[in-house]
């Protein structure tokens, strides 16, 4: 991780600040994205998008940004070079979260109001399949090997395992109340699933789809009912898991090997989702109620800054 830090610095010397890493944050109530320059750690502009933008994802080459415009009932595709919407994908109604298959082609989208997962071919711009899942599908992840797409349903309280080869639902794992987000470990062996009302994160063994460990969180001075895990991010080196705890206004730092909670970092109000910068030295977290993004130094495990963005920031992605 340390050595990686020099790469962007070197690039910077050669080609100037134009190559600074950039974060894009979806502002749910402003119908736009905030653009953050990660060298200056400042908001440098906004881009208007569809209504109620939430989930964000990047293409493998980081040129295209996929945006769930929930109230426009579409997934928009933005060319980041021109910052223009180049197409609107047939996402099904009220898309909230999605995940792009490693083949860079199949987008798995949860349709919150229709209890469906829609699979869209982003090149052909057509729906490949729609799969019945539980009520209020929310979290979505595709395994690094591309074999599994996993969806969470908030009212049904399950993880739904979809075989991407056949696009059929083949297994379900019952978890705690209101599963919100799923994240595969980089080696694909475990899946981390947060349960917002249950207040837990389940670490699931992908091979057996059984729960290995259930993480609980306890923050001094914060009522247990307010500890509501939402976003989860795992470092590529397998060292840490970061869990955003919603209205507890903290992010839990978890040892991804021992599952021990190492620390709680105070961030803004109702922290939602997170993203690393390219060398994973910084973690950005969106704070819905306070309308800002907290910046965390991953090496020191300290919150170093907060950056004002729009109203109800929700998703965040970073391009190099």
């Amino acid at each position, binding site marked *: 991780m340390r050595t990686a830090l020099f790469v962007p610095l070197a690039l910077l010397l050669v080609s100037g600040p134009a190559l600074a890493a950039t974060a894009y944050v979806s502002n749910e109530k402003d119908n736009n994205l905030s653009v953050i320059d990660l060298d200056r750690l400042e908001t440098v502009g906004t881009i208007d998008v569809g209504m109620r933008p939430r989930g964000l994802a990047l293409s493998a080459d980081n040129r295209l940004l996929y945006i769930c415009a929930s109230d426009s009932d579409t997934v928009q595709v933005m060319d980041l070079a021109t910052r223009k919407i180049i197409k609107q994908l047939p996402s099904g109604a009220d898309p909230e979260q999605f995940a792009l298959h490693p083949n860079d082609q199949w987008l798995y989208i949860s349709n919150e*109001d229709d209890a469906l997962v829609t699979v869209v071919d982003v090149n052909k711009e057509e729906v490949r399949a729609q799969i019945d899942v539980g009520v209020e599908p929310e979290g979505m992840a595709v395994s690094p090997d591309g074999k599994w797409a996993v969806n969470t349903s908030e009212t049904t*309280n399950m993880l739904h395992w979809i075989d991407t080869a056949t696009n059929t*639902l083949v297994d379900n*794992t*019952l978890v705690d109340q209101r599963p919100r987000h799923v994240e595969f470990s980089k080696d694909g062996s475990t899946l981390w699933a947060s349960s917002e009302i249950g207040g837990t994160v389940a670490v699931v063994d992908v091979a057996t789809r059984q729960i290995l460990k259930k993480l609980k969180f306890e923050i001094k001075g914060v009522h247990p009912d307010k500890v509501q895990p939402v976003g989860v991010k795992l470092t590529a080196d397998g060292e840490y898991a970061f869990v955003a705890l919603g209205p507890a206004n903290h992010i839990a730092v978890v040892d991804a090997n021992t599952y021990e909670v190492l620390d709680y970092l105070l961030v803004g109000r109702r922290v939602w989702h997170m993203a690393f910068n390219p060398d994973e030295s910084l973690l950005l977290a969106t704070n819905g109620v306070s309308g800002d993004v907290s910046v965390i130094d991953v090496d020191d495990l300290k919150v170093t800054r907060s950056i004002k963005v729009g109203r109800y920031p929700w998703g965040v992605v970073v391009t190099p």
Partner: protein
Amino acid sequence: MRPLLLYAALCLSPLVCAPTLAAPAREPLTVAIGYLGYRPDPGPLLSNVIPEPEDAGLQGAQLAIADSDTTGRFLQHDYQLTARDAQSPEQLAAAAKALHEAGLRLFVVNAPTQSLRQLADAMPDSLLFNAGSADDALRTSLCLPNVLHTLPSRAMLADALAQFLAVRQWNRWLLIVGQRPEDRAYAETLRRAAKRFGHRVIAEKAWSFDNDQRRSAQAEMPLFTKGGDYDVVLVADEHGDFGEYVPYHTWLPRPVAGTQGLTPTGWHKTVETYGAAQLQRRFETQAGRWMNDRDFAAWIAVRSIAAAVTQLGRADPTAIRALSLSDDLPLDGFKGRKLGYRPWNGQLRQPIPLVHPRALVSNSPQDGFLHPVSELDTLGYDAPESRCRLSESIR
């Protein structure tokens, strides 16, 4: 890898396949729930411009069945609702008896206190969810052992409002009370809340007019609200006889709160955060109208049963009751935190939205009102103030 592929090839529908791979093998289970509705005719109302929906409550229960069946189909649990609407207490009792004889032991009841008592006594082996009576006596002295309450009590509503008024420092109240027993009960909880949260009722007036305020409010209401210097007018008029005509007609230019104006309620259209928008949309698609507090109470009652059945793997009323009264059944009610039942009186703990007709104004408990167990217990009767000890009867 190989057995999985084989499995996927054989697997034609998730309904058939899911349980085979899911943790323990599960037996198919039918969960039969009865819905018993009886709302007495409130008589002629003086302000009847916007009528109340007649299927309030029932639609909530029906939606919860649909929601619960989605988990159920993966676990082979089948939720079924049998609904009976009665025109009299006798009809209601007869309907309950018939369902009980058909083997039902789980009920959602949307009826006045008297009927609820009757049903609870007649079916001691059943578990009833009260989604229709806000009566505080049920939570403090009657203590029906086989009843859980999902509708907030009047005291919870009054406390929720009084906390907000304390935050705003609107401490001097003019209280106007309607003529019905429900209005007097509402006023009583407001007086209690005033004492608890540092307010003072500087004057109290009984509404005794019997004319239609639609044409005369402007002439009469200012004079009626004259007297003393108050910060806010509190109205106790549960059926909406006159209360709608108090705002903007007060002698002093003051806000109005209570059953009209700024209103504490268990649920309202304007509640949208914490995933509530999705629940509202599902409800509106099904019912063709907005979800109200009784719909929510019936919805969360059925959802409580489903959450317990999912955990227990059976639909035994005694086990569901014991689990509900423990700390081990966190419920998702789209209210921003987990909900659960108070072990002493079976009342569902829940945040209370404060609304006016087209916006959410606030949510109680307010920040800073602390409680050693749960801040939600600053609303309504706390354990030491209630004679009920429901959880002590669990062996």
